[in-house]
């Protein structure tokens, strides 16, 4: 049996494939080159090429009379970003991304903490699926669900009426800035949906960071006389912080570039993503859309640089 196998291998080794195989084995760099060629070509040409095209477009400008793109190098389009109206859009988006990130961290931490330290056996599976299902559920369906909840005739109003608390909602909606006609057309609504949709991305990195904290360290802290609260504040939380920062990369970046949530639930005030979409679509002003798109790239560049210094990449 072993002999037939060996002769089989022998006979196959004579073919063209065998010679190719021998060459690849003797020259690992050729193998590496062949492995890398397709993905690097694809990503390099399609993705980096597109990013380059984006950058190129942002240095062109649009002729406001003819609506034609003027293919000459100019910084005028970037200057347009700093007009009060456009700068407001950038500020509003960054502020929203920051608030979403903080709120996500607050909601995600207890879930991650419980899943990492207390969930055992069956509960571990429940927590894992309980986190993964909402993370992977359809993005648009999640937004749609909140449209149903926040609508004037929706479930939230019904529930508050049942509790005789609708005066509270009315009082909140009459507030400036955060209020509005109903929650589904207010900044608060946009904020809730942003937190809902992007928060699951925060849980897994925090959980991973918490799971890496050795139990002996917590025991040592207790032996040295720390109360549970002190152990949490001075030992566990600082060690989990890189995980929080890693999670915040997702929530921050995803909020920064989203244009569908504020379009469906929120006021008519624009976010960066919406500005990009509108300028390239109806207005046909691709240069200004491109310049707007460069803003999140620059912001995320700084953010990632800061996160790297805090050791967040080891927690990913």
């Amino acid at each position, binding site marked *: 049996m072993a002999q037939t196998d*060996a002769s089989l*291998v022998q006979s196959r080794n004579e073919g063209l494939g065998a010679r190719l195989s021998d060459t690849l*084995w003797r020259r*690992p760099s050729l193998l*590496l080159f062949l*492995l890398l060629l*397709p*993905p690097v070509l*694809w*990503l390099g040409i*399609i993705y*980096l*090429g597109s990013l380059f*095209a*984006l950058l*190129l*477009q942002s240095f062109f400008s649009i002729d406001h009379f003819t609506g034609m793109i003027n293919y000459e190098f100019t910084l005028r389009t970037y200057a347009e970003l700093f007009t009060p109206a456009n700068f407001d859009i950038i500020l509003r988006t960054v502020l929203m991304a920051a608030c979403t990130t903080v709120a996500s961290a607050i909601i995600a931490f*207890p879930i991650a903490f419980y899943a990492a*330290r*207390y969930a055992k056996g069956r509960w571990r599976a429940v927590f894992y699926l*309980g986190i*993964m*299902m*909402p*993370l*992977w559920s*359809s*993005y*648009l*369906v*999640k*937004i*749609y*669900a909140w*449209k*149903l*909840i926040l609508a004037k005739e*929706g*479930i939230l109003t*019904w529930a508050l009426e049942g509790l005789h608390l609708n005066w509270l909602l009315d009082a909140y909606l009459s507030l400036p800035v955060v209020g509005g006609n109903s929650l589904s057309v207010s900044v608060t609504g946009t904020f809730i949906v942003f937190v*809902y949709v992007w928060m699951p*991305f925060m849980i*897994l990195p925090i959980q991973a960071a918490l799971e890496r904290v050795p139990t002996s360290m917590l025991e040592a802290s207790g*032996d040295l006389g*720390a109360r*549970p609260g002190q*152990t949490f504040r001075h030992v566990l939380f600082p060690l989990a912080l890189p995980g929080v920062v890693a999670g915040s990369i997702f929530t921050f970046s*995803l909020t920064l*570039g989203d244009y569908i949530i504020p*379009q*469906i639930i929120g006021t008519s005030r624009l976010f*960066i993503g919406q500005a*990009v979409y509108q300028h*390239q679509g109806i207005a046909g002003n*691709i240069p200004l*859309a491109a310049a707007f*798109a460069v803003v*999140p790239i620059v912001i*995320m560049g700084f953010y*990632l640089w800061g996160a790297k210094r805090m050791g967040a990449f080891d927690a990913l």
Partner: protein
Amino acid sequence: MLSDRAPLSLKIAAAAGLLFLHLPILLIFAYAFTTEEKSFAWPPPGLTLKWFAVTWNRPDVWEALSLSVKVASISTVIAMFLGTLCAAAVSRTRFFGRETVSLLVILPIALPGVVTGIALRSAFSIADIPFSTWTIILGHATFCVVIVYNNAVARFRRTSGSLIEASMDLGANMFQTLRHVILPNIATALVVGGMLAFALSFDEVIVTTFTAGQQQTLPIWMLEELVRPRERPVTNVVAMVVVLVTMLPILGAYYLTRGTDQVAGQGK
């Protein structure tokens, strides 16, 4: 030290967080059966199965669905090919520019979707490429590579290199080793990566709006209904079906990777 039993406040906070994540999705199921046609009234005035039949007979829903399935299938195949090659290269050897390659793979998903979208749109505009199914696939395959790559890299790291050397020492050539040793070892990781890539592509809307032109994938159809509602009950039914369908790859990925230390789908 921290006790072995969770404090009550933590239990409540964790349970509340999970409820916050799940209740809105469950709500979709109730709305699919409502008799109310014009508004989002709650509670539903009555229950009916009528809208399932109506949705079944809508050609626009079927067209959108078939385009979505087509795009997701082709993108998944491309992503599995590119992602596996890249993972094999990065995990087996250290070479100059290795970090750059892994950054390049992650970039399409690390940058906001709107950036990827407008970048592709600018490139199509400069190169004068008309919108087609293939322009959608180009975008989808690009950001799906990272999903397959993440799963494959984790598996390659745990597959011992001595297995491959042993196979070669016993006389197998590289293709036999690939067929009989490497592929069986990484098969589940590839299947999981493929399923997650399919799910990601099937649901993608932000990049697609920039690369689709007039075509409608299922998410674009839904977006259209959200912005300009025509028949709300049909949207409700489609939403419920989409939730059920996207659950399948996640459950499948979970059962296939159960017991291993890798976490499937971690880096959506």
